[in-house]
């Protein structure tokens, strides 16, 4: 297997890390990138297996900085096996696993276990994130040095924002020596306590308690000030408000070491989706309303916020796209809106959903791919997200014209909690290569049918 030589020929190769955007061949051997040719020869060199990518886009495999694999502890929602398969089906070759597992990834023992099992049974690369505080309780710092030695790529208490400003300050200060980012879910839980969706006309109409955008913004402002104080690297996950962007811009101009991510859903969906009509605003509240698959934290925001994050991603103020893939079991979603769990199943729809922004002329395809590859790799400071010689041969091949209809029942993910069920997309990842091996290939197949090869776990 290690001797496989592969030539991906005739595709439009986009590798933003190298400034490459040309029709070329990508040559792979021994699981590493050998080269990206100057021109496409149209055929494979002798001894190379050929994948004809003409008419397609050849990108480095995507890197997701924000994934919930639910393993260990909630294996009925997702496992390392199903989550990494779902990732491969979405074009991802690296995912960073959030620490809100059970037990929490707050010790070398848990982190090592996740890495070991991922290496054994995962379809693609899993990099763990350690917690900031013991048990994500926000009281005492987790053994961050031990976690760093074990291989975590950053620290986060995920859905539990560090409320105590002094603990946040200490976490940031302590992380400097480790050279790893602090990723703090930015939300002041007291503003809009009890809220289940974004405050605004839709929440008012539906009688759902609203969380104002300011609940995020004030926390972003606090964290940026503390990052400036400590000269630490702050990474802001799933940024979603206009106010946060104003603060982010100002901090970046001051030279604060800050990066930010936005999710596919905050780029493409708004609070009107809670009406359950795929963004349409009905004259009357119908039985489709209170669509629990739209419940997510941060909540889906207003149209204005959505336009603002798209623009910020396009210009590079927001550095990257991360999925916040959050699988939940049916019982967590077939209930009232208040009872429903927060989170959207994203990995397998991520690229297609944001690719619609390219078609709409709101972002360039090169910038989009950068935000899924070179961008996250730069935050990780690892040799990933590019087709540079010697890098792991991780590749996503995209058919920009392929139509498909989202059917969560066909997800590789164990869960089906997507508000995009029934939505038609144009553009899809059709092949994913990890370390030179094909881990996903959507060969043939009718429109709307996910006929992707369900490749088993690597043994």
């Amino acid at each position, binding site marked *: 297997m290690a001797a496989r030589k592969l030539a991906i020929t005739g595709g439009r190769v986009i590798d933003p890390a190298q400034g490459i955007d040309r029709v070329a061949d990508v040559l792979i051997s021994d699981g590493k990138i050998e080269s990206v040719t100057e021109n496409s020869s149209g055929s494979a060199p002798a001894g190379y297996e050929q994948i004809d990518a003409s008419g397609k886009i050849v990108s480095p495999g995507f890197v997701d900085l924000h994934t919930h694999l639910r393993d260990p502890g909630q294996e009925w929602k997702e496992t390392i096996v199903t989550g990494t398969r779902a990732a491969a089906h979405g074009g991802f070759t690296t995912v960073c696993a959030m620490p809100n597992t059970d037990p929490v990834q707050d010790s070398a023992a848990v982190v090592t276990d996740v890495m070991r099992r991922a290496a054994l049974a995962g379809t693609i690369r899993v990099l763990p994130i350690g917690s900031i505080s013991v048990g994500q309780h926000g009281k005492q710092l987790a053994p961050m040095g031990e976690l760093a030695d074990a291989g975590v790529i950053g620290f986060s208490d995920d859905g539990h924002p560090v409320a105590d400003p002094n603990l946040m300050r200490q976490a940031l200060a302590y992380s400097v020596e480790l050279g790893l980012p602090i990723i703090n879910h930015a939300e002041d839980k007291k503003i809009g306590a009890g809220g289940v969706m974004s*405050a*605004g*006309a839709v*929440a*008012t*109409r*539906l*009688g*759902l*308690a*609203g969380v*104002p955008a300011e609940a995020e913004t004030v926390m972003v402002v606090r964290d940026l000030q503390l990052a400036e104080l400590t000269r630490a690297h702050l990474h802001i996950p799933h940024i979603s408000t206009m106010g946060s962007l104003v603060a982010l811009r100002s901090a970046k101009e001051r030279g604060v070491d800050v990066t930010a991510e936005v999710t596919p859903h905050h780029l493409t969906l708004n609070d009107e989706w809670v009406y359950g009509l795929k963004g349409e605003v009905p*004259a*009357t*509240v*119908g*039985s489709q*309303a*209170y669509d629990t698959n739209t419940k997510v934290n941060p909540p889906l925001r207003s149209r204005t916020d959505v336009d603002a994050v798209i623009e910020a991603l396009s210009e590079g103020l927001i550095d990257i796209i991360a999925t916040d893939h959050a699988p939940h079991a049916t*019982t967590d979603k*077939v*209930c*009232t*809106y*208040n*009872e429903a769990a927060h989170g959207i199943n994203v990995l397998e729809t991520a690229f297609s959903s944001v690719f619609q922004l390219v078609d709409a002329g709101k972002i360039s395809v090169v910038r989009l791919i950068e935000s899924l590859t070179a961008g996250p790799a730069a935050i990780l400071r690892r040799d990933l997200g590019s087709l540079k010689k010697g890098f792991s041969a991780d590749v996503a091949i995209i058919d920009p014209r392929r139509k498909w209809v989202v059917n969560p029942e066909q997800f590789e993910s164990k869960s089906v909690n997507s508000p995009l069920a029934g939505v038609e997309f144009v553009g899809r990842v059709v092949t994913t290569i990890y370390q030179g091996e094909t881990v996903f290939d959507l060969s043939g197949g009718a429109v709307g049918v996910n006929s992707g090869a369900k490749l088993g776990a690597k043994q």
Partner: protein
Amino acid sequence: MANPTITVGNGNATEVIQTSGDKADANVTPRRHLLDLDDLSTKEITDLLDSAAGMLEITNRDVRKTPALRGKTIITMFFENSTRTRVSFEQAGKILGADVINVTASASSVSKGESLLNTVKTLQAMQIDALVVRHPHSGAPYFISNHTDASVVNAGDGTHAHPTQSLLDLFTVRTHVGDIAGKKIAIVGDVLYSRVARSDILAFQKMGAEVTVSCPNTLLPDEWQLGTTLDASTGFGGLKLARNVDDAVEGADVVMALRIQQERQDAGHLPSLREYSDRWGINAKRMALANDGALLMHPGPMNEGVEISSDVAHGAQSVVEEQVRNGVAVRMAVLYTLCAPGKSSRLSGGDEA
């Protein structure tokens, strides 16, 4: 569809009462649920009110019993404490001859044990005709309506809607003023958390009234600005947000005080109930600003001395007890409209919404 007139026993006599269904267009799919008033046409609302007038007459008889819904099973499922609404529905169902079963459960115990979905499916398996639901979570009746063939009546969901309260409020006002169109309605109280406020605003606006609300700014949605009139994008277009209570009440034909709860003070929405009473409480002095003969309403239960003073609560302008009485008639009209024989073919499952 045959004219759905019903035969009603009246002691030894038998009569035929006119119901909303008589005027229904034969092509219109029979209404299956009452979840809010937003999807009812003004005609549907008027028909329900007309039907309620007939029902009110039945409730005033010596023998308050008709066989109109004999053999029908209605379950009231209350996940929140309520005496008046539950009893009102129960009485409405019983007067119409239906078998009424009351289920009480707390939402928290349901979510910890049996899920709401399973509870509904279990009741569904017992071939019930209507589910009357009160639930602390907005949208719960919508959720339930997707998982049962029974008619679902929203008896109050979270902070979203309380359509039968609005119908009885419309009915009460109509009884006194005739045409609701053009009348000025002042609603004073906890708009942010009040399902009565939401449903009543929609209902009175739909019937052509001019609605003004007044409350502390902490009890308004953030996007609503005091002293303005809402535009259509809010879903409550035309609603006036008075700067203070006197502005709202002045010249009103109807003044409605809403219950203010201790939790609002505890959560920091209010300095104190005392200050609320002083600045927003409806009393004789404020009622004097309203039009002569203006009605004073309250959905109950009242905190006398807080949002409403005792003298006006029981004074000549108060129609609070009448609201309760009308509630039974309105709920009879609703249950009859949804459940009367020949309205749907639930057993064949042939009228999926």
